[in-house]
């Protein structure tokens, strides 16, 4: 069984020849900053939830390298279809912090991204984004673009028929789609090893006859590199890829969850040593002159930015009641038009 693809050890040492992009300090700094931004957003979101100012929230703590690594390889021609745990990826794609807060605060306008207009919003029904990704890939293929559909789901998502049916059609039709698994070892309280007996989740690609690869999901360089390769293959008409990113969910499943019910600290602690930010920071410090100042400045600006976004979000008044029917159809049928009137702008 091959090791998952990785370039940086948990301590940040280079363990394999770096891909070109990872030799560039600016690129690495950008990746690091993006992960830090996601983590800061995360902390703020949890704080807001704890004080009743945000809805149930799914933290990406410890898995920031996945969303950031994947999306940093993508272009505007591609389409991103996240699960509910890829805030870092959404942010990299251009979704704003305010939009994310709005979504998690329970406001549909959070899905009306100013940025990546073609990207899908957060997907709550587990694995149901994979069929969409197949459909998006079909459209991209049909319209002879170079675009690729890139969907992310969890380890639990791989047990669902949607995942499998979609993977299979991606194979059968050579669709330009990449399915990324954020294997954070847990689906709420169910361990990866209780979810499936498959040796790796990447192995599930065998069932669809497409390449599957396991990468170190805490190594943003590995995630990006694997995604870049898969994107290249897809753009070259070679079809889809399944990428399993091995990571760990350091926090609760969501703010509604209490992970201490089903796992010990003793299990969690070692994973803190392997999380994605430390290793890249170590690498930046050792190789690209990243200093304490840089770190502090980053945390400060990111913190400020997130705080400001939170304030903006909190100041956004809810939509009028009629919004709940105004967008159901392009042209509201008679009854809904009447209902909208009745609900009014209050």
């Amino acid at each position, binding site marked *: 069984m091959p090791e998952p693809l990785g370039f940086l050890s948990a301590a940040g040492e280079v363990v394999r020849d770096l891909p070109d992009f990872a030799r560039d300090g600016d690129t690495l700094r950008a990746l690091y900053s993006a992960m830090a931004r996601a983590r800061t957003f995360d902390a703020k979101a949890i704080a807001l939830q704890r004080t009743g100012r945000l809805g149930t929230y799914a933290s990406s703590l410890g898995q920031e390298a996945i969303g950031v690594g994947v999306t940093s390889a993508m272009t505007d021609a591609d389409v991103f279809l996240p699960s509910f745990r890829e805030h870092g990826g959404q942010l990299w794609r251009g979704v704003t912090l305010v939009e994310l807060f709005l979504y998690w605060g329970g406001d549909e306008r959070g899905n009306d991204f100013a940025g990546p207009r073609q990207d899908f919003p957060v997907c709550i029904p587990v694995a149901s984004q994979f069929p969409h990704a197949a459909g998006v890939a079909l459209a991209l293929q049909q319209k002879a673009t170079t675009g690729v*559909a890139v969907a992310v789901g969890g380890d639990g998502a791989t047990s669902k028929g949607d995942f499998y049916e979609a993977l299979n*059609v991606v194979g059968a039709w050579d669709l330009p789609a990449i399915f990324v698994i954020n294997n954070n070892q847990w689906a709420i309280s169910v361990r990866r090893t209780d979810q499936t007996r498959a040796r790796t989740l990447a192995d599930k690609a065998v069932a669809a006859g497409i390449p599957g690869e396991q990468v170190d999901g805490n190594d943003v360089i590995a995630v990006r590199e694997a995604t870049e390769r898969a994107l290249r293959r897809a753009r070259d008409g070679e079809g889809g890829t399944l990428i399993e990113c091995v990571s760990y969910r350091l926090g609760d499943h969501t703010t509604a969850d209490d992970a201490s019910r089903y796992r010990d600290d003793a299990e969690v602690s070692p994973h803190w040593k392997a999380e994605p930010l430390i290793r890249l920071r170590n690498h930046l410090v050792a190789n690209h002159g990243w200093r304490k100042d840089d770190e502090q400045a980053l945390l400060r600006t990111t913190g400020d930015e997130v705080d400001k976004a939170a304030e903006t979000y909190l100041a956004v008044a809810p939509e009028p009641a009629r919004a709940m029917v105004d967008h159901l159809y392009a042209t509201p049928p008679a009854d809904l038009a009447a209902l909208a009137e009745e609900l009014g702008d209050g």
Partner: protein
Amino acid sequence: MAEHTMIEAVRMALGRALEEDPDVILFGEDIGIDGGVFRATDGLIQRHGSARVRDTPLSETVIAGMAVGAAAAGLRPVAEIQFMGFLYSAIDQLANHAARLRNRTRARLTCPMVLRAPYGGGIRAPEHHSESAEAMLAHIPGLRVVIPSSPARAYGLLLAAIRDPDPVVFLEPKRLYRAISEDVADSGEALPIDAAVVLREGTDLTLVSWGAMLTETKAAADTLAADGVSSEIVDLSSLKPIDRRAVRASVEKTGRCVIVHEAPLTAGLGAEIAADLAEHCLMSLLAPVRRVTGHDTVMPYPRLERRYMPSTERIVRTAQEVMEFA
């Protein structure tokens, strides 16, 4: 203008849509070289190629879900579920995604897809091949559910469904696929998608139905006419949204109503119509609103199928009771 069956009309509409809009794409099981198990897509792969007329793997969830994705990304997928009995696996994608994408993104992403499926019984098909589960779909906000009752209506409504900017489930009464022919011009003209139509005007009684059951409904109206009862026949046509005004207007005129559908009684769509009338037309009603439906059971295997389906006689008998009510 030539006479066409409903299956031909469906094919004509699909062909027309493929021709007029390069974004239209068809997929489903056996719709390619086989032309669909009912031949709805016969010849289309030859004319439009295997990129636009595609056989899918045997995966109803992905047929629906892929349609959502393709629609959001700029295509106009017209997907087929081979029989309505196999559409249940697509409900999750319909209810949780197709019907909501516009609303939950505040119209940033939309879902102009059509999911076609033959529905209904009466052709002695194997089990699970005779479902009429339209009421389940009509309960999903954000969907459209359309059922044509004749070749010409199938042509015009299917074009309307394909051009509609929102998701439409288009249910084809398979019993009618080859049962009737009528003049259908391949004019490219769509019919209004949200409108019920009065198929026959009358003064004493309103008969509301849709799809294949209009056959028995019309036959019942004929029998009733011979008895001097003038029935107005409303073809509901759009099951979601419902053209409530049209139904109410008819019942306000006639004062009596019988609703006919093939699906089981309980929580069938007839309930919604009767409830609407009970709320909005109570004072016009001269008799209780009655429903003639499939019995409140699973569609039996072919040997008892006829005993399940609402018959002309049942409709006539119920209508007579409604007429005699004082």
